[in-house]
């Protein structure tokens, strides 16, 4: 199928994992709606044969809230990017988590604005180069998973495009959990991120994910034992699975 993604882009992997989870859930195509904002990652719904909404930058969760509240019988899945979700869409993100509305949000966090050519995002790691951080990013980074937990989402997990099996399982677990499920996938963007940050090859970026991730449970254990986890490591795993009151659940 012709698509807009660059060679080696991680978005295809995340779409694949999500669709596998949908298949495992046995969801009817006609009852499953994909919604996205704007960005490379947000082009995903265009490649899925369901009803879908490719909306405006940052607003996917607000559109999704309308769909789900008007039609709780639908399974609603949102694809979004780190910029789309946490910069322009940050307020909708917090409130969708607070409402704990019954949708599944899959965020492709490539740590950069891909579609507009590699500007810094709220998730650009400290020191990383982008077209708007030519001297290295200096602002603190948003931890999207922690943010979702704090704001009230019922299911929160983070994996990477290296962790294909775990990612698929997490998305499915999210779909099974009533309320808002937030699954973040750290995703390689060789074109806009790797090229400027000594990870020109897609495999360089995937290797980096493999070697710089630590299981959340292990990280907590280390921290409890007073040991320091290196700053450039990030935690993957399940951040929350709970049963807060939800909105927009199916009328059974």
């Amino acid at each position: 199928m012709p698509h807009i993604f660059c060679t080696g882009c991680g978005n295809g992997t995340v779409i694949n994992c999500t669709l596998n989870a949908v298949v495992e859930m046995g969801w009817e195509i006609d009852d499953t709606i994909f919604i996205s904002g704007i960005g490379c990652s947000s082009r995903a719904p265009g490649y899925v044969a369901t009803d879908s909404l490719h909306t405006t930058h940052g607003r996917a969760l607000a559109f999704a809230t309308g769909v789900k509240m008007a039609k709780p019988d639908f399974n609603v899945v949102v694809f979004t990017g780190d910029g789309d979700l946490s910069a322009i869409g940050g307020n909708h993100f917090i409130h969708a988590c607070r409402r704990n509305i019954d949708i599944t949000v899959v965020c492709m966090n490539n740590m950069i604005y891909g579609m507009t050519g590699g500007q810094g995002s709220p998730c650009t790691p400290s020191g990383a180069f982008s077209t708007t951080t030519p001297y290295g990013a200096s602002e603190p980074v948003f931890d999207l998973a922690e943010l979702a937990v704090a704001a009230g989402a019922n299911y929160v997990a983070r994996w990477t495009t290296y962790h294909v099996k775990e990612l698929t399982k997490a998305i499915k677990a999210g779909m099974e959990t009533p309320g808002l499920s937030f699954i973040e996938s750290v995703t390689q963007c060789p074109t806009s991120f790797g090229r400027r940050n000594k990870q020109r090859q897609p495999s360089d970026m995937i290797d980096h994910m493999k070697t710089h991730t630590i299981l959340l449970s292990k990280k907590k254990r280390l921290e409890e034992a007073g040991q320091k986890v290196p700053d450039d490591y990030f935690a993957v795993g399940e951040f929350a699975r709970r049963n807060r009151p939800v909105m927009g659940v199916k009328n059974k």
Partner: protein
Amino acid sequence: MSRIEFMQGNIACAEGALAAGCTFFGGYPITPSTEVAEHMAKEMPGLGRTFIQMEDEIASISSLIGASWTGAKTMTATSGPGFSLMMENIGYAVMTETPLVIVNIQRGGPSTGQPTMSAQGDMMQCRFGSHGDFSIIALTPSTVQEMYELTVKAFNLSERFRCPVFVMSDETIGHMRERVIIPDSVETEYRKPPEIGKLPFEADSTLIPGFPVFGQGHRVHVTGLTHNEKGYPDTNDHETHEKLVKRLVWKVESKRHEIADYDIENTSSEIVFLTYGPATRTVRQIIKDRPDLNIGHINLRIVWPFPEEVLSKFKSAKVFIIPEMNLGQIAREVGRHTNVPIHSLPKIGGEMHNPKELIHAVEEYL
């Protein structure tokens, strides 16, 4: 049968929406529109319909668009600053041909301006505020009765034309209480389903494609990008873009005579008032009080698309006097369509025109 009530304009708006079959209301509080949302919050759940207070106006209109694609009839109510926030997604609704109703109970601007005072300062914004070329429909009630009726009409027009429709009212009418006749039922229009064999965004001779409601197996992709008739992005082909945007504009503009809704009085007059909203009331008063002035009057219930043909009905007109609660937004539009001199009578600050001001303007021409 019908019932008679003494009702506030904003409540009449909400009641009109309920009667028209509004099943989804998403909103964010702002003076002087809040009573619309409050009344919907009270009434919708009992009717099995959805009310949601979103986190801001951008979220509100987003939720409407999402809900509309599930087949819901949707409305939000706001005022100037909230309306400004909605502009990007108003364009999205135009581009994706999503029916929805936006009520703007206008207050004094720019910026936060005069929250509790009346104005008509958003008339040009509603027409041209979103980016790109497009056409919309805007209704302007001048009584509480019309607030009810035009809200119903707004729903019907949005369903029929698949575009955002605005009820451009103001604090005066929104907060005024008047006698309203509420009919038992109202005429309602529903969007037409897609024709078999047609692509999701392929229009027939009406220029309006059938609406592929989500969940019915159409598997339609909806995008704000320039799209082909299948609904898929096609952003680099100038022909696709031109064809799409011209159709979106023309589906409304080509029906302007059908959409037009106005009253006219004394078409042989030389001095003609053109009004919409509160000033309509003042002109009606002076026509009653001063028959000797022999005044003509056009009251517009729909300003966009502008019903230019109404002007030529006044063959002896020597002047069109246009009192507005802004600095002459529609006066300029009138000037585009006639060689008859225009006398703009702007008034801002919150008060509507009084009879003396209008009579004074007439006397200049006697």
